[in-house]
């Protein structure tokens, strides 16, 4: 282990988020069956599994889009049966989407600025008149956003309408918007899907930098095994909605059930 890795390992703290016995079904389809898993502060936590395994559903449960029929979610010392998207966002969890969910008609800058929405408090009237606190607020947030834009190296596209950007860059904007919320926990749903090698490397670097510089806890869904094994501290493996493995990359690699699931299903 190099020094950086050792330092990283030392930072990993206690459990911040835990799902216990979560089950979620859509009609007859069991997206998740009795899944338990936890996330520790500052770690990079991966979720893998074949298509339809329930990975995205997992994020949707955490972020309050889906309401599980069974199980509990422990977060920040409290126990929830399900989550509310607005409260989740307020409490410092942000996310990106598997199928890009950007505000396509808006500029890159506006998309990322919208991530600051929760941190803006001036009332509508002041905003409308663009005076006093409202204007100052807009400028302050703009500075943070410019920082993120520099960090993700998308300066050149600030004013471009998001819908016109190539896919790889849209993925970056999606990440930028989530980062603008300054989250404690960042949920990433296949941030590297559809990218070429070089774009993937960039994205990996960004994710590790975020984790490193801001201490952000990262929950990551990814299909590319080499990426997952490379950057994550612990890996959860799902198959048909069931947990079939959970542990460090090495442990998971050696897990018989995991090997079978991956050999049995082609992607």
């Amino acid at each position, binding site marked *: 282990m190099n020094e950086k890795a050792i330092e990283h390992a030392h930072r990993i703290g206690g459990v911040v988020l835990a799902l216990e016995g979560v089950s979620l079904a859509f009609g007859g389809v069991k997206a998740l069956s009795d899944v338990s898993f936890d996330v520790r502060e500052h770690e990079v936590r991966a979720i893998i599994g074949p298509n339809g395994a329930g990975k995205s559903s997992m994020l949707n449960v955490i*972020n*309050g*889009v889906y309401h599980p029929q069974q199980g509990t979610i422990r977060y920040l010392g409290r126990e929830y049966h399900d989550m509310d*998207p*607005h409260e989740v*966002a*307020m409490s410092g969890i*942000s*996310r990106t*989407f598997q*199928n890009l*969910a*950007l*505000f*396509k*008609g*808006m500029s890159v800058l*506006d998309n990322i*600025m*919208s*991530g*600051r*929405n*929760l941190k*803006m408090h*001036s009332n*509508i009237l002041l*905003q*409308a008149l*663009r005076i006093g606190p*409202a204007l100052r*607020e*807009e400028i302050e947030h703009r500075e943070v956003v410019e920082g993120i834009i520099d960090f993700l190296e998308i300066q050149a596209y600030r004013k471009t309408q998001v819908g016109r950007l190539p896919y790889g860059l849209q993925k970056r904007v999606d990440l930028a*918007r*989530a980062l*603008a*919320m300054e989250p404690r926990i960042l949920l990433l749903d296949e941030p590297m899907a559809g990218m070429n090698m070089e774009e993937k490397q960039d994205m990996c670097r960004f994710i590790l930098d975020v984790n490193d510089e801001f201490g952000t806890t990262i929950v990551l869904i990814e299909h590319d095994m080499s990426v997952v094994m490379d950057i994550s501290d612990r890996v959860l493996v799902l198959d048909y909605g069931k947990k079939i493995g959970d542990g460090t990359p090495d442990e998971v690699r050696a897990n018989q059930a995991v090997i079978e699931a991956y050999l049995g299903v082609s992607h």
Partner: protein
Amino acid sequence: MSKHWPVLTLGAVLLVGLVLPIATGASPPGFYVEVLLGGLMAGVLYSLVALGFALIFKASGVFNFAQGSMVLFAALAVARLGEQMPLWVAMLLAMVIMVALAWLIERLVLRPLVNQEGVALLMATLGVTYFLDGFGQTLWGSGIYKIDLGIAKEPVMILDQVFQGGILVNKEDFVAALVAAGLVASLVLFFQKTSTGRALRAVADDHQAAQSIGIPLNYIWVIVWSVAGFVALVAGVIWGSQLGVQFSLSQVALKALPVVILGGFTSIAGAIVGGLIIGVGEKMAEVFLGPVMVKVFDLAGGGIENWFAYVLALLFLLVRPEGLFGEKNIDRV
């Protein structure tokens, strides 16, 4: 290019219709400008109401059939409350009522129905329409009421140096059009430049993503319905003062529908341009096309103003269903 010929043809026909009266000398320039101006002034009001409609459609995907009834309801409130108190107090109070209405609609109609089929929501706004029409009468009566803005209604002569005979404009109409135009401009600025406006646009683009960054959908819906209520109030007061507050107001306001079909449901620019096209178009058609039709086909004449907007909207649906500025509806999987 070839794909666009139906739209281009329709546009060309409209344009020819617009210039024909003046080009053929059928109308004296002064009179022509007077009709044009009248059309624009009426059109701004359509734009305003259509804007309320487009906002709701963008932010919640709801086809708000009740927009016309909201105009009537607000106008009734102002007219009847205005009998007991100064007009500005009545307007403020009516605004409070419209915001309360927005809140109630969000609570009782939108929230429970949000994940249902689109048809369910459309039916619900139809329900709201008839409820508002009826409930307005229950509260405030079904007579014809007056709103007096205290601006002279007599026409004044302007530009009589430029055009022979000058141009007659009604001062109240003129002020009303200015107010409406100012309001349209402020709404556009609000939408483009404020953080709440940004949140509104975000919700319009993608509900899920908007939620994930902590924008509360319910709050946004209350805001857009309140804005629609405000727009309805202003339009209701202006039309109420011009035409009297009566049941037919909701029919006038329903012209917002053809306007948004023309402009594109989700487009702010479309609502504005559409309003102006329909305002000018129907005036021109009424004044210049009407007499020709009467002569050629030996008709009773008149009434073009009542159907022109809808026929134009129908034609647009045929040649360009997404409207002038609307986006093609592509369902993503």
